[in-house]
């Protein structure tokens, strides 16, 4: 079987591989690049556990071939945190108990990140519709929705008030404590 050479920018870093055309993007990420944060759940385009961003659009990486990602930019859960600082969505899932077993979480966070990019201040209904392609079998979604609401508030606050951004971030770190305890 002939292979094809692909170049994919993953979390800002150009990576190359020789792949069979039948290789799925999720397996390129997990098996070839060792980025196992992206999960394989249903493997039938239903559950969304494998959600990543491809050229800024959320996609189910079990339903895309690695060759389709050639020349594109892919962002996975590993690309969300800034060093030791969690992304506001990751922190919010922590604070709000937005996960139990955690299997759906990487896909859920990537989908939520795409949603907030499109719609920085979604209503609860818009959040629920926005994550309708991602299944969670533990939480009943209530705390996931709360987490996305928390992150939406923080992200839009930091964008609309850049002058006090540093202050706000500090304030959030403190105010996150009681929520995490509760």
């Amino acid at each position, binding site marked *: 079987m002939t292979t094809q050479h692909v170049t994919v920018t993953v979390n800002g870093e150009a990576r190359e591989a020789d792949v069979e055309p*039948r290789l*799925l993007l999720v397996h390129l990420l997990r098996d070839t690049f060792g980025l196992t944060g992206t999960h394989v759940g249903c493997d039938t385009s*239903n559950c969304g556990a494998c959600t990543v961003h491809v050229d800024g659009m959320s996609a189910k990486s079990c*339903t895309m*071939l690695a*060759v389709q990602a050639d020349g594109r930019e892919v962002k996975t859960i590993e690309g969300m945190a800034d060093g030791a600082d969690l992304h506001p969505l990751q922190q919010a899932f922590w604070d709000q108990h937005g996960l139990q077993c955690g299997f759906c979480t990487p896909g859920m966070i990537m989908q939520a990140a795409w949603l907030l990019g499109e719609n920085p201040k979604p209503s609860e209904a818009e959040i629920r519709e926005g994550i309708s*392609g991602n299944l969670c079998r533990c939480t009943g979604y209530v705390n996931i929705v709360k987490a996305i609401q928390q992150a939406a508030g923080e992200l839009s606050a930091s964008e609309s008030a850049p002058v006090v951004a540093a202050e706000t971030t500090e304030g959030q770190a403190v105010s996150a404590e009681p929520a995490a305890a509760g």
Partner: protein
Amino acid sequence: MIPGQFDYVRPGDLDQALGLLRDREGEAKLLSGGYSLIPLIKLRLAQPGLLVDMRDLSGLDGIVETDDELRIGARATHRQIHENEVSARYPLLHDVTGGIGDPQVRNWGTIGGSVAHADPASDWPAVLQAAKATIVCRSANGERVISAKDFFIDTFQTAIEPTEVLTEIRFRRRPKGQGGAYVKLERKVGDFATVGVASITKLDGSTIGWAGIGVTGVSASPFAANAAEEILVGQAPSEDLFRRAAEAAAAQAEPVADVRGPVDYKRAMVAEMTVRGLRKAVERGLAYS
């Protein structure tokens, strides 16, 4: 799931793509968004020898209104159509593109891919049947414009030849007094339609001058409910009229019992979704006069 082996080519233009389809006739398959085809390949229900990726074929994702038509390129994604300014003027298209699959599917899935795939429970074919839309297919021999009525032949079967590329879907421009709606019953978000009904009515004064109804999920292929359309034309809209048309649409359905419900239930739901769709269509037509 690991798909079977296949070759993959990403041609730079339509002529190259057509050449590949001709050279590997019968074993080549076009790849658009992939959200219909890749699951089939993973399940090995489809085993193409060659995938021809349409990604670099330019000029196939336009959404333009001409003097008498709305033309949507095959590569336009459900989301692009939903977000496009024309969507505000075509509520039927806004309805359907907001409810296909889930957000990730709508980000990547395309109108052309969905139409060419012709799943018997997919949404677009019902809309095309209701609107009497036309489907444009290109081959080395030129262009064919096929009516929706002749295009959808059977389950996963269309009038596209193996050497053709579906390039465009054409709708008639919305005239004053016309409104449309797509009403879908699904067991849960993201599921295929148990029943989906696309309804269009055009009001001429106080009566319905033209009507189109397309139904999906309840037959081997989404169909136009012709008897229902005839009942509506020339009549003043009323609940009683909608109910009579809906019963005719339900009678034309040929549902099979499956996990989504028994035959009687599905037939009843065709009628109900048709009534709901007609109410909305007429209301939207009144608001656009």
